[in-house]
């Protein structure tokens, strides 16, 4: 395995980790305020569809992105209405959102585009282009020219032109969302209250702060972030929506969230780790370890095996916010 291969795998890792990271941060905000959100998958899916569909119709990926975010936020509000206002079961509401998204997107897509539940392929301005950082293209060309000649370049510059540069803007937004989330949650009054409401809503209520408003706020943030994640899938990574294209990424994000013990920086590392495992699995489908061949099924199951192993106690106990999953009832 040469250096360039490692860089290519890391490049792929960043692309694959981005939707996980956005969804994971969405879950982080939601669960820190005491709302369990297994509807991440559904919200990503609905955003993936609406961003692709609107981008296809208007020809502008930015309008598509807005539509995706709005749709995900609306789905968040459904979840909020069921689990905050009406004090329903958060798990059931989340499952319902997943089912609703899975069925609704295909149905609407069929009605609008008549292509069997997919959107037309996006091209040009209807997709997020990759951003080339200053000088990246020149460095890549220089590297290729040197390699094509007799030179043996080390490829160190590839860290810049392959791994750091050349992603779509949403990738950088996702990476930026980590410090921002950390700051909001741990350095602002809003964040303190939000965390408190996930631990002991009665105390927050006694202090005269509205539990309901805080929880809705956190759910709206979750909607925004899942909206970005979905839009990235359909307009950044792929070029259009297909049925169930999230393919379980919302659930992987939840696993990463538990793994990260509900902390933003840990969430970044957890998502990068899952992304790395997927990237390695894509690149090396059969790995030989000391004369013993690991089958591809093992590589594909690895993220899940890892989650189980980790949660079984290797990283210490993962303690969820104490009030998670319980609707807040003011008086009995």
């Amino acid at each position, binding site marked *: 395995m040469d250096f360039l291969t490692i860089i290519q795998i890391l490049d792929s890792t960043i692309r694959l980790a981005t939707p996980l990271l956005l969804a994971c941060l969405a879950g982080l905000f939601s669960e820190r305020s005491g709302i369990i959100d297994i509807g991440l998958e559904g919200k990503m899916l609905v955003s993936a569809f609406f961003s692709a569909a609107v981008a296809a119709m208007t020809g502008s990926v930015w309008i598509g992105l807005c539509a995706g975010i709005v749709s995900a936020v609306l789905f968040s509000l459904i979840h909020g209405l069921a689990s905050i206002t009406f004090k329903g079961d958060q798990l059931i509401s989340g499952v319902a959102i997943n089912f609703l998204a899975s069925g609704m997107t295909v149905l609407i897509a069929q009605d609008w585009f008549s292509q069997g539940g997919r959107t037309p392929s996006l091209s040009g301005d209807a997709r997020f282009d990759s951003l080339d950082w200053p000088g990246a293209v020149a460095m890549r060309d220089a590297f290729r020219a040197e390699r094509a000649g007799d030179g043996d370049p080390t490829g160190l510059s590839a860290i810049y032109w392959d791994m750091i540069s050349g992603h779509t803007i949403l990738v950088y937004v996702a990476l930026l969302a980590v410090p921002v989330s950390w700051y909001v949650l741990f350095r602002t009054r809003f964040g303190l209250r939000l965390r408190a409401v996930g631990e002991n809503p009665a105390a927050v209520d006694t202090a005269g702060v509205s539990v309901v408003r805080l929880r809705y706020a956190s759910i709206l943030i979750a909607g925004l972030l899942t909206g970005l994640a979905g839009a990235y899938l359909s307009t950044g990574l*792929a070029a259009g929506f297909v049925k169930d*294209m999230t*393919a379980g990424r919302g659930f992987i994000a939840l696993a990463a969230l538990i793994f990260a013990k509900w902390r933003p920086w840990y969430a970044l590392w957890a998502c990068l780790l899952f992304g790395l495992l997927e990237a390695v699995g894509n690149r090396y489908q059969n790995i030989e370890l000391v004369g013993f061949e690991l089958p591809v099924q093992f590589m594909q199951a690895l993220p899940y095996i890892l989650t189980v192993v980790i949660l079984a106690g290797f990283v210490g106990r993962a303690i969820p916010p104490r009030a998670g999953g319980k609707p807040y009832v003011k008086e009995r």
Partner: protein
Amino acid sequence: MTLMHKFLGAAATVALSAGVAMAEPGLIIDLGGKFDKSFNESAYTGAQRWVEETGGDYMETELQSEAQREQTMRRMAERGANPVVVLGFANASTLEKVAPDYPETNFTIVDSVVDQPNVQSIVFSEHEGSYLVGMLAGMASDTGTVSFVGGMDVPLIRKFACGYVQGVKAVDPEIEVIQNMTGTTPSAWNDPVKGGELTRAQISQGSDVVYAAAGGTGVGVLQTAADEGIYSIGVDSNQNYLHPGSVLTSMVKRVDNAVYDAFQSAAEGKFETGVQVLDLESEGVAYAVDEHNEALITDEMSAAVEEAKQKIISGEIEVHDYTATDSCPVE
């Protein structure tokens, strides 16, 4: 009141007997969906062509999950559809169980063999078609590396891969073929993001022609190939039009003909059970050339492929079938 009952009863009898007399064929679209631009869409096109040409009518349902197979098959048979056409190898074990319960109903299964007296099994020689597109890939490649993206890791897809590799190696045994499967569950047919990522990984390993046999996942493979400026090869339906100039050719599998023939033969009362193999000779499989890709295929390439095609038909070249031995002689 009794008179009313009699009338209703009579009406019902007439309706029932009419239903029996005009048994409609039924088509069960498999997971992946009716418009997957690939396997299922091809079957749907065949059914639509039959409707247009004969003015007949047929019943159609689309599976939503693995668990619905048996239920859907039984319901279709009970509603009086005849023959019931099911698509895909994944139906084989279910059909094995269901078919004996409806001895009056004929079934057709595409892509697998079910040994029952009332079942017609249609299989394709995908390895032969893949051999030909493999030759095209080998001739179109500049880097000396080509690749393959499969959908779900099952023997049928290995059959595509094995034929492809043999075709590539027939051009030049030195050419390297990278093979990747998307996954081991049915969701592997519908993950264009992963398909695109696999393609990128293959490109970074030097591949400049990628063959996708992966249903809806293939859409992502073809898209990435077009974005990155390499050639791709489509599958099942003719996918040349998706990215003109980038899609080198498509390995067309005439599922539409299979469905059309099943419907038509039943309508004419000539339905035959047993195994039917649709191969190069019967044009069940072929490589597609149309206005979108004719510029990519040189005279030299098409001459070589046509020659190989004739040799396969005459038996001079024997393409190994992965499913016959569960192994492939070349990697």
